[in-house]
């Protein structure tokens, strides 16, 4: 592991910033470029970097596989659930106007929730796909 000191230390310093940057991109998606997809991919990239530097076993201990699987489904549930909530509150499916006292605030809440759902799903899918690909051994032929 001696030759990987630079990688390890560098990754150790960078990964928290990567994760926070992903959250920044998520929440500033309303005011600049960004949004759920980009944030989900960047968040997953933080964990993939950890896996590349520290090994898959360590990563599986930090983020066991059930978490990405859960997240992928949870995000879709959040998104569809927002629609059901708006239905229950009297509007049409995914009509965010009814989510708050004021249509504009309702739109803000709706977009926040929906983008969060997208973040969670994309994060889960990217990490789970990486686990599926990296978890397989070399194939002899």
């Amino acid at each position, binding site marked *: 592991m001696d030759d990987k000191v630079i990688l390890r230390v560098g990754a150790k310093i960078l990964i928290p910033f990567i994760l926070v940057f992903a959250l920044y991109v998520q929440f500033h998606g309303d*005011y*600049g*470029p960004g*949004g759920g*997809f980009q944030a989900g991919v960047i968040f997953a990239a933080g964990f993939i970097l950890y896996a590349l530097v520290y090994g898959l076993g360590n990563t599986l201990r930090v983020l066991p596989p059930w978490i990405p699987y859960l997240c992928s489904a949870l995000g879709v549930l959040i998104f569809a659930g927002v629609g059901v909530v708006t239905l229950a509150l009297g509007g049409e499916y995914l009509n965010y106007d009814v989510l708050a006292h004021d249509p504009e605030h309702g739109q803000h809440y709706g977009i926040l929730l929906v983008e969060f759902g997208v973040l969670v799903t*994309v994060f889960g*899918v990217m990490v789970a*796909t990486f686990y*599926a*690909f990296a978890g*397989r051994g070399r*194939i002899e*032929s």
Partner: protein
Amino acid sequence: MSFLVGHYNYWVVIVLMMVGFYILISRGNLVKKLLGLSLFQTSVFIMYISLGKIAGGTAPILMGGHGGDDHAAEEAGGHAAEGAAQAGDLLGNAATEVAQAAGQAAEAASHASGAGEVLYSNPLPHVLILTAIVVGIATTAVGLSLVIRIKESYGTIEEDEIHAMDESL
């Protein structure tokens, strides 16, 4: 001439698409085919975004108020004209014509939008392509998992060898 300027973007992108398509149909290695497909997809995205671009426009992120933006738009038009003059010095007559036409179009656009608003590029293609990029990576991931399983079953990922094995059953 202005027809050439107005359309060269599309033609180069069609060339890129065709290179990707050619990789897809002429190479036998499955991973190479998927690379070609990914190339094709990205070129299609460039095509759509080119269709949504407005000369003299800016990214579709609304800036502060409407009023303060005339200056930005007019400045942008002015800079475009200056840039056109400089480009002319470097590239010669035909290109001067081209660059000046582009600069004039930008100025005209910004003046036309002049009275209160900044010109934004069309946001609708951006949304469609955002979705398309994510769906593209999803299909690429499924395609790659299929390639891995094919390798495990057949021992090779060259298409003609796989066909030979299938036909020899």
